């Protein structure tokens, strides 16, 4: 089953409901309601957390620097960042880049969606509270440093499209088998799987919840190769497609803010 979170005209709170197989309507049990124009809210209501350095390729790219200042040593715990509420937008959002940024990274990732509070999970039970999976597109202003990049590079308004759907985990194969395809203006620019992870989904959840709980509606991304993904500019249309999960689209507004 796939679920959408949509805003119906005149309602102030989005509703979450299963979508019809074509993805165009939600099924409220008796009524089938078409998703209105611009109706997709961020697919989840909670917090979004992303891991840094969770691909072996990214780790290897930075490994030469890890012994040097300012890093000094490789990290032992998961390195995480926030995409706070002001960054969350739904499918088909129109997003305004910060005035100072020419381009933004297209950090497509799968996101694990939690259905209840999860703390001190073990790798064995870590996925028990994961309801499903969604697509997260982390739009970040590129920075070569991973020491203390300015918070605004990841936290500008609208920098985290999420959706369009949450797909039940039980309906999905091993997540490392899913391919994320990123298109800019219709051209395929990036094709990746979450293969070669430093922490696979279960170990990531276990190691993160060792120090911070995740709650209902929260999303934990699996990560993307920061600094090694395509970028986009004002006026571009972006589409991230994952088999079984759907396609998350957004447009970067053309005019300077």
């Amino acid at each position: 089953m796939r679920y959408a979170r949509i805003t119906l005209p005149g309602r102030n709170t989005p509703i979450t409901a299963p979508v019809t197989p074509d993805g165009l309507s939600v099924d409220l049990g008796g009524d089938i309601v078409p998703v209105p124009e611009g109706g997709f809210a961020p697919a989840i209501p909670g917090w979004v957390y992303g891991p840094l350095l969770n691909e072996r390729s990214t780790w290897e790219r930075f490994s030469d620097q890890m012994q040097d200042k300012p890093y000094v040593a490789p990290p032992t715990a998961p390195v995480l960042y926030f995409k706070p509420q002001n960054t969350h937008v739904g499918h088909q959002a129109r997003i305004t880049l910060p005035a100072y940024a020419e381009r933004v990274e297209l950090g497509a990732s799968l996101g694990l969606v939690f259905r209840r509070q999860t703390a001190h999970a073990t790798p064995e039970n870590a996925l028990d509270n994961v309801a499903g999976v969604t697509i997260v597109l982390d739009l970040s202003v590129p920075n070569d440093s991973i020491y203390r990049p300015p918070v605004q590079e990841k936290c500008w308004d609208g920098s985290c499209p999420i959706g369009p759907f949450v797909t039940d985990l039980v309906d999905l194969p091993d997540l490392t088998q899913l391919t994320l395809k990123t298109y800019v203006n219709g051209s395929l620019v990036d094709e990746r799987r979450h293969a070669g992870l430093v922490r696979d989904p279960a170990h990531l959840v276990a190691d993160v919840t060792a120090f911070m709980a995740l709650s209902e509606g929260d999303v934990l991304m699996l990560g993307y190769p920061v600094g090694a993904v395509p970028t986009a500019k004002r006026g571009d249309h972006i589409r991230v497609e994952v088999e079984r999960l759907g396609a998350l689209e957004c447009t970067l507004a053309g005019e300077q803010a």
Partner: protein
Amino acid sequence: MKRARIAYNGAIHDASVIDDRLVLADGRSPDMDKVVWLPPVQPRTTFALAINYADHAKELAFKAPEKPLAFIKGPGTFLGHNAVTRRPADAQFMHYECELAVIIGRTAKNVPAADAYDFVAGYSVANDYAIRNYLENYYRPNLRTKNRDGCTVMGPWMVDAADVADPMNLDIRTFVNGEQVQAGNTRDMVFGVPALIEYLSSFMTLSPGDVILTGTPDGIVDVKAGDQVVTEVQGVGRLVNTIVDDQTYFQRS
């Protein structure tokens, strides 16, 4: 007005503190020791400031930053007044940080510093614990150090902005087991409240209930299980927290 959120008799209430008495909306006045104090706002996006006092920058061997060094906290790290915070067995150096907390009251985007106070709902006291041996130099300060469950204490209440004449001239102090260990004044912030609101709202929309923790002065010492830590901001409040070890935390709280 001092405004608190408390749990009492099976429900969560908005409460006021009037003449040192807790008063619920319906007039009940429960004993302050018989209620559970929640953070005065339900945490939404919270910013904290690293090394925003010149003396603390020196203490940590940093030079004062040219732009605010802001980082974010999630909801799970917050606790209210009179709670306990866990010191994990492998913590080597765990310290409090007494901070003035600014609570946003109106949606704010691109607000000039001159107008910034119009967007403040009120002020509270925060104690932002850090475990320094968990610090790692990637996306500093890392979440394992600064977003740990139960390691950011806020309260006991929010004081309305109108009742704080000059938020940039408040003494802030920390006491461990009654002994003063930290003292400073908000006038020594590198970036004051108006500048922080201008800076943060320049790149993101601030919303009602968002919080800015404005940093801490020097005077950090290691705290151990059993220590009572009181953080105090002049005219705002006195926030109490107790450190416990793993055994106590997992068995009793």
